[in-house]
């Protein structure tokens, strides 16, 4: 059988770069939590401001690699009993290796795997700060509009999942992308 000639279309040449992405927005604790036996009724708050910082390496090929951290408050609540009243909040700081890919023009998807540092901040007849490292992951999708050759502004939806402790949150963020460094 004769072979057809395949017409090769060269990929547009991309210059490798490092891109810093900083975002801020709001998160909602989406995992199940039942605190009815301890929490003061109505005191459970699952909404929180959230922020993230991501440094991505954009190589010549499609798959990108980076590191991510940030901050979110999973939930907080109050207790009132005969001994007094108090409150506790559970915060999460992700430390993730992130893979990313552009799937459509300006549309990127992200998947991260690593750890969350969970911080307990408790006030009840004294203060306690305690923490633990747990395994987790995240997935995100972002849409970024270029503002200049180095700057972009975008929106990102992200799901954070500290699966070891069954904690999860959904976040919506406004994101600023800055091409920090580029080389040939």
């Amino acid at each position, binding site marked *: 059988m004769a072979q057809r000639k395949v017409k090769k279309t060269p990929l547009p040449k991309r210059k490798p770069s490092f891109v810093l992405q900083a975002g801020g927005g709001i998160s909602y604790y989406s995992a199940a*939590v*039942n*605190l009815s*036996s*301890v929490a003061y009724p109505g005191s459970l708050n699952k909404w929180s401001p959230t922020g993230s910082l991501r440094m991505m390496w954009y190589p010549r090929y499609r798959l990108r690699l980076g590191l991510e951290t940030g901050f979110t408050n*999973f*939930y*907080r*609540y109050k*207790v009132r*009993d005969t*001994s007094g009243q*108090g409150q*506790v*909040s*559970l915060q999460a700081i992700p430390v993730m290796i992130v893979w990313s890919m552009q799937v459509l023009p300006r549309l990127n998807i992200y*998947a991260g*795997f690593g750890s969350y540092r*969970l*911080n*307990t901040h*408790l006030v*009840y*007849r*004294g203060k*306690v700060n*305690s*923490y*633990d490292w*747990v395994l987790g*992951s*995240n*997935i995100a999708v972002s849409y970024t509009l270029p503002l200049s050759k180095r700057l972009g502004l975008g929106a990102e939806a992200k*799901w954070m*999942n500290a*699966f070891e*402790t*069954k*904690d999860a949150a959904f976040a919506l963020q406004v994101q600023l992308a800055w091409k920090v460094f580029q080389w040939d």
Partner: protein
Amino acid sequence: MITLVVSCKKGYQVTMPNTGTWGLFNSPGTAALPPAARAAMEGVYDVGNGSDVFGSLTAIKWSYAIVGNDTSFHVSGFFGTDIAYFVCEGRQLNGNILLNGYWRKMVSTETGLVRLTVTDANGAALLLTPSPVINAGDVVINGVFGNGQEEPQQPIRFTYKRKLYHSATPFNILAHRSGGRNSDLLPVSENSVEMILKTAEFGSTGIEIDVRFTKDGIPIIYHDNDLNLRETQKSGLVGPIENYTYAELSAFVRLIHGERIPTLRQALSAFVDQTQLNFVWLDTKYIGSLERVRTIQQEFLQRAAQHGRNVEIVIGLPGQEQFNNFLSLTNFASTPSLCELSVENLHQANSLIWAPRFTEGTQNDKVAAIHAEGKRAFVWTLDVPEFIEQYINEGHFDGILSNYPSCTAFYYYVHQ
């Protein structure tokens, strides 16, 4: 992909059936069983109908716990298949004995209702006499069992065969973590007061409990080093349990079935005042002075003696650090202890009990030497039914620590 796989992992659970649906058992006119009937009913029974599900023999035994002003009695049947057992309450009605409860297989999530009857003609008349004497075939228990909450319809039948086995020296059926692990999906949490009150239903005669300290120096019962979902409900509290005071744990943390983390005092109080259990193994999970634990041990031994209860509370020595801390106690030699280390360490600490792990075998020669010194030997932690059977039939230990005390109870009581 990892996120999806981990998020979709199946969680197993056992929903205990509601046993309050048998109208006859709850009808007016039922009355409690007399103590003599309960005692006489205990024994080894042949399983007729139902042997394909539960095996050919069952060991039936009564237990009790005191809750508030009430004493609740339960009859349990231990089987040799799939670590199965049933737990029922008992009443009499019009000369018949009714037993109503649930069954469970510990190798799976299988459970369901069980409803049993001893009719007047099948032995109830004999059992309800003031001083019943039962021989083989005198008592026949007929009934039905079902799956889950469904109305039980599958027939089951037990026929009295012989008395329960009791060795010449007392044998301890010890339950790990006060009754069993959370991973075995029991209806109450491990290391809880509620489990201590329930564990005799699973065949236990004693318990092992894990002792740690809170930030403010209160000894509590808790297994792991940190707060986690294996032992507690979500609370927002993470990290080492010793980072928190007892008041904080009590206000913010609940065990997986909603109980509070008990203090050592609460646990021993339940043991002494509310159960028929006779042995507590305090597994010291912390490194530090044993003085406070010993003070509480002595306090509750005295309290038990005042109540006429013949019980033992021993401090476990699982590692070299705890061993060294034990030797630094004044009068350590007169402090009841259990040594998991070498026989030489046992002698140094003057421990009452030597407790090697089961992987070292039955060690019959060493156990015989321990017995010759007037001491005892327990083995831990035996969970495989074949091993439990082997250690009971071929070994000479004075007790077995297991997550499945019902399995130990079966092989011990049916032993001949």
